[in-house]
């Protein structure tokens, strides 16, 4: 890109790979504005003082020639040709009285010249940009960067909740691991039998076994062993013919009475609420 007017000949070669040429090239020009700019340059005058009329004529002439030798032109070029033909006719005719907002022919010519100058300016800027020292082309970065070493500083995470859970877990485990056997209070079968013999001796009628037991047993924690032993004792005593046993339903109250030829009959129906455990 060192040449002053690089696009005239070397342009096609510069098209980047992988960039499809969608534009129909007219002698390597990139669009009508590019062509116009080149034509303007050939006027060899400052772009501020180009003759737009002369430029329009040159453009139309160029297009005519191109159409004679080529099959087709990109539509852009034709649109521009039509517009320039219109502009040319407007510029040649005396300026009609201004009507409304429509721009005058000279406004249009100025606008075209402006666009050409702007394109040229941006091209110059592009060149200056690409002339700058570029990284990896003209200047180079550190080839062997030294990575920043990462030192890990652990930050311990633990919450009070974690701490207390851990402690409680430990203490609980410790407590569970140390099994203490309580001294068990057991009402022996013999005790039970003695007690029952004493109690039932007075009961000539059906009496619920539990009634005996609850009146006899004061301490609640003894109830289970008393009940178990008492049941065994009553069964034994029933076998020996000392007691009659009766139960209405599974888990129902157990009725007992002394068997000494007393009045036969069924025990009373338990009333509601009675014997609820």
């Amino acid at each position, binding site marked *: *890109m060192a040449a002053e007017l690089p696009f005239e000949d070397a342009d096609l070669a510069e098209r980047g790979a992988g*960039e499809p040429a969608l*534009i129909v090239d007219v002698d390597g020009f990139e669009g009508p504005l590019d062509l116009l700019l080149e034509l303007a340059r050939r006027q060899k005058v400052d772009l501020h003082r180009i003759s737009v009329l002369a430029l329009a004529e040159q453009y139309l002439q160029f297009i005519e020639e191109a159409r004679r030798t080529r099959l087709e032109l990109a539509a852009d070029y034709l649109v521009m040709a039509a517009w320039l033909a219109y502009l040319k006719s407007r510029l040649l005719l005396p300026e009609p009285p201004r009507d409304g907002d429509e721009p005058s022919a000279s406004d249009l010519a100025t606008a075209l010249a402006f666009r050409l*100058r702007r394109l040229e*300016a*941006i091209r110059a*800027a592009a060149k*200056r940009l690409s002339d700058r020292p570029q990284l990896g082309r003209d200047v180079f970065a550190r080839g062997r960067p030294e990575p920043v070493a990462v030192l890990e500083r652990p930050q311990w995470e633990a919450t009070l909740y974690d701490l207390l859970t851990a402690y409680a877990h430990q203490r609980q485990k410790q407590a569970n691991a140390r099994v203490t056997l309580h001294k068990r209070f057991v009402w022996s079968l013999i005790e039970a039998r003695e007690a029952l013999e004493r109690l039932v001796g007075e009961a000539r009628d059906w009496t619920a076994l539990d009634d005996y037991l609850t009146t006899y047993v004061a301490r609640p924690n003894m109830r289970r062993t008393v009940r178990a032993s008492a049941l065994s004792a009553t069964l034994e005593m029933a076998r020996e013919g000392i007691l009659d046993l009766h139960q209405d339903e599974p888990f129902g109250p157990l009725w007992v009475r002394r068997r000494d030829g007393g009045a036969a009959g069924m025990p009373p129906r338990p009333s509601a609420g009675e014997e609820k455990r």
Partner: protein
Amino acid sequence: MSATVESIARDAQAFAEALRIAEALIFASREPVREEDLAGRLPEGTDLRAVLARLETLYAARGVNLQRVAEGWVFRTAPDLAFVLAREVVEPRKLSRAALETLAIIAYHQPVTRAEIEDIRGVATSRGTLDALMETGWVRLRGRRRTPGRPVTYGTTPSFLSHFGLEAIDDLPGLDELKGAGFLSGRLPPGTVVPLPSDDPTLREDEEPLEEDLFTILEAERVAEMGEPLDMSDER
């Protein structure tokens, strides 16, 4: 406040140490080092500006220069030594003239839409040109212009600045001339408002964010280029 001889000597030593640290930090890194990061590593109370200015001077005539680019400070080989070093590297892919021109328009006119690029160049921009630019990582989609059709706006990235050794977007060469001639004002007649290019990532008043992901946008742009959306049944 009278500084004793010792305290002067101490200051000088602290400054020399700060130089060494800054030098090591920037030297070791391939990427520009941000001033905040430097400040964080230098001893408390160091005059970072002075340290960097001194290093810049120290290295100005050397084979390796200290440079300020977009994101921070970086050591780069001196540009005049390109001829010795160039042999070493694979020739980077060259941008076509069209791509370079488009890049320049994006840089000087950003945020800019494709229609505006085409207006300046007077020719349709091929998808390939924009793709090639996006691939360089120097150009990004900024947002959408709040105009009918909500066209995508393009701008440059920090790596654009870094690649071309620019400190900020207003260091673009020839920016003043372009501005003075009214060439940055888009379609407006010269002499009205002269917008300056800005790669400030915050969107302008007339921009709105890109909501979709990049892929969707590029796809949409591609379809727009193709023209009418293809009939689905034709796709297979």
